[in-house]
């Protein structure tokens, strides 16, 4: 899926850990799939709008559909033992795990999901990169 690969690349460019990038891209994939399946209900006439932005302090991903929307305050808990064997209902849970913030907003025509991943301060990233480079030059195995 293009948006998933693009989200992973944006994370990588932002210097985030590959594991964090993996889950962030999964979250974007889940949001996009929800939008196509449940929002736009596979209607090719309905538009899926995705935007990605790096503000310097956070990566944000916005996914908007043109569907009916849903009541995001009344989502069933997928961890409830009564729901564990349900086939669906884990996408938003995974988004919340992967991201620092997940926001839903009803639009005039559709629903918008905003996923935010905070970026470590630049100084922290420089120190971490220097540390990694130092370990590489010392031939550290891990």
């Amino acid at each position, binding site marked *: 899926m293009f948006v998933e690969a693009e989200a992973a690349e944006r994370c990588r460019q932002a210097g985030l850990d590959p594991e964090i990038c993996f889950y962030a891209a999964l979250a974007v994939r*889940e949001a996009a799939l929800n939008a196509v*399946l449940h929002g736009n209900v596979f209607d090719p006439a309905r538009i899926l709008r995705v935007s990605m932005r790096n503000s310097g302090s956070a990566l944000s991903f916005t996914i908007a559909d043109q569907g009916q929307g849903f009541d995001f305050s009344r989502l069933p808990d997928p*961890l409830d033992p009564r729901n*564990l*064997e349900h*086939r*669906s209902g*884990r996408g938003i*849970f*995974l988004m919340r795990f992967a991201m620092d913030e997940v926001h839903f907003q009803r639009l005039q025509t559709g629903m918008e999901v905003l996923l935010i991943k905070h970026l470590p301060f630049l100084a922290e990233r420089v120190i971490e990169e220097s540390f990694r480079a130092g370990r590489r030059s010392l031939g550290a195995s891990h």
Partner: protein
Amino acid sequence: MALAIETREVNGVTILDLDGRITLGEGTVELRYTVRDLVADGARKILLNLAAVDYVDSSGLGELVSAFTTARSRNAELKLVNLSGRVQKLLNLTRLSTVFDIHDNEAQALASFK
């Protein structure tokens, strides 16, 4: 990469070697039909080998659950073996690790069937 499924039998256990991604539309339907047909044909011990599964999304998790409940509805056992770290983590996060009987290697999994 779509999901490829190879079927073999060892000591009365039907093993499905899955290779690829378990995600919406990428072989999950085939997994569903394969398990459904196996239990309809009388298989009662099914082992999903996920050694070559590198990615599962929420739809894929749902398909694994569906395979499990389909098997159970016909009095069959369905277990998992050889999960990657990421797949294991997703199962832990979603508490599906409490639903499935999960094993680290095939020998251990085979021995666990009654």
